């Protein structure tokens, strides 16, 4: 190799020995090569400085020590929710129209909401696992909105009802079959504090 090559590149001093490094290198699967020394990197008088390696935008590891605070519901609202006073409704795949059994259920739910009129109600829209996160978020919103609109049409004050979509993020059944999917395509209702 011509001697000028490294000098032209102004590469720095690094005189190194290979010695047994080849054989010891963990990924070398073969017997040692019959070799004594490696082609040593030549020295150059004007060694260029090494490039500093940096994470330009490495993103920080999140602080996991601070545990999130969960809000607690009033005991009565919690109790009613635990008892399942408000019944969930279900939807067909990729649909947000209310089915006839859902309409019947919503009639019962509206009555219960009237009975416990001191509580606001949150309507959650949910989807099965098929389809993307984003599409299902929008679909879950449509489902929650369809339920809300019908409850309002039954006389439930709109200002008592809030909606939120969880898309496919909160499955009731984590299975990957028709039964699980049917269960997961739903709107759920819960009493809120105050």
């Amino acid at each position, binding site marked *: *190799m011509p001697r000028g*090559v*490294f000098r032209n*590149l102004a*590469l*720095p001093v*690094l005189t*190194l020995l*290979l010695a*047994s*490094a*080849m054989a*010891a*290198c*963990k*990924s*070398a*699967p*073969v*017997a040692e*090569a*019959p*070799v*004594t020394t*490696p*082609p*040593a*990197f030549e020295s150059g008088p004007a060694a*260029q*400085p*090494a*490039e*500093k*390696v940096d994470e330009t*935008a*490495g*993103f*920080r*590891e*999140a602080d*996991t020590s601070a*545990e*999130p605070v969960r809000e607690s519901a009033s005991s009565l609202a919690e109790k009613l929710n635990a008892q399942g006073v408000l019944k969930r409704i279900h939807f067909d*795949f*990729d649909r947000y129209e209310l089915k006839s059994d859902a309409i019947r259920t919503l009639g019962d739910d509206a009555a219960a909401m009237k009975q416990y009129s001191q509580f606001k109600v949150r309507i959650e829209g949910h989807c099965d696992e*098929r*389809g*993307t*996160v*984003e*599409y299902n*978020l*929008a*679909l879950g*919103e*449509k489902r929650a*909105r369809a339920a809300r609109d019908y409850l309002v049409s039954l006389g439930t004050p709109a200002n008592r009802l809030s909606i*939120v*979509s*969880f898309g496919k993020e909160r499955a009731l059944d984590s299975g990957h079959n028709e039964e699980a999917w049917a269960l997961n395509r739903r709107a759920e209702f819960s009493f809120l504090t105050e």
Partner: protein
Amino acid sequence: MKLLRRFAWLSLPLAFTAATTVAKQEAQAPPTEAPIPSVPIIRIVGAARPKIPIALPAPQSPAGARAQEVAGTIRDTVRDDLDFSGFFSIVPEEYHKLVRLDAGGRIAFKEWQGIGADALVFGALGPEPATLVFEGRLYDTADQKVLLGKRYRGEPDQARLIAHRLSNEIVQQYTDQPGISLSRIAFVSQVGKGKEIYVMDYDGARPKRITANGSINLSPAWSPDGRQIAFMSYRSGAPELMIINHEGELAKAFAQQGGLNSAPAWSPDGDTLAFTSSRDGNAEIYLLRLADRSLTRLTHSDAIDTSPAWSPDGRQIAFTSDRAGSPQIYLMDAGGGNVRRLTTEVSYCDAASWSPQGDKIVFTARVPGGFDIFLKDLKTDQMGRLTEHANINEWPRWSPDGRHLVFASNRTGNFDIYTMDVDGSRVRRLTRGGNSYSPSWSR
């Protein structure tokens, strides 16, 4: 098999063959949707241009197990980067023993040529234990000359970073295109009942959790400069658009009053976020100008409009809408006008992503048995299928060089992040054991 066209910047010929697969309308498909015409879906079966055979002998290293491990990590990482790039074939290591490593103080170029190596990477690790100094040199064995020489200094735990830097230089040397070895992938992964945002290297190494609020955090999207990630979070109860920067500082993207705010997508110039909001009562696509937090509504339909994806020139936006009865991909101008439907072949298409070259759009489509990833060539209007019948394959996103895709799949039972070449070949699994999805590849 018919050769259709060459993709200019890569000279990567893609061979298309008509596959036997024809999507059939499913029983559950909405009744408003017309039956699928029996148009054969074109399957891309991948052919590549000749690869450059490259040999990477073990780097020189000071004695000691630790030094040799670091040197080995750097070499292995460079090798994997070059292999992944698709431009190189790695000369098998067992051939190296046929070459004299020291031919009288010279490199035995002819012997390296003899085992098929057109290119050769020699590396050397510096002797200092507290700091990592690595020098890499790339040789052309035919011309018997150095093509590039680079010396890097870093912290002892930055072996992979140094390797990626060197890999990028080597790719640049041969292709005149920047390598992607320093790019990263953001994704969502389940932690207990919560879902948090993670960032990892493009090869799946060094995963790092960047949110820890215990809530549901979804849909990470890189800013073009790689210094910020927009995502959606339920941390305040309602789904809100947030932005986190690389310092870990978290802020709401703008003042939001309930309803759905999701699906952020950064414009190529970094000035604007396209996103989905139900703030006016229905899921529509909006633009958020980050300088003054002003909002512009782009879509007006009673249907679902979501998942905006920018064209690389920032002039158009692809999105999903079910305005025709089931989700399909539509295109519109970035001002909201000139809306037209892109996909007609399959009854359910979603999650478009525009290639960096602007000539293709990938998306997820529902097929019998699950979801697969498809590609639409905007010039030829041809459709290619990139995955086939393995449960759910979704949310494809382009690598910065437009040669690879990252996506989520539950082919093993749980959702994991995978990459593949843009012809559907060389599928690699990047995550394991979690429930990980919604990948976004940094520019």
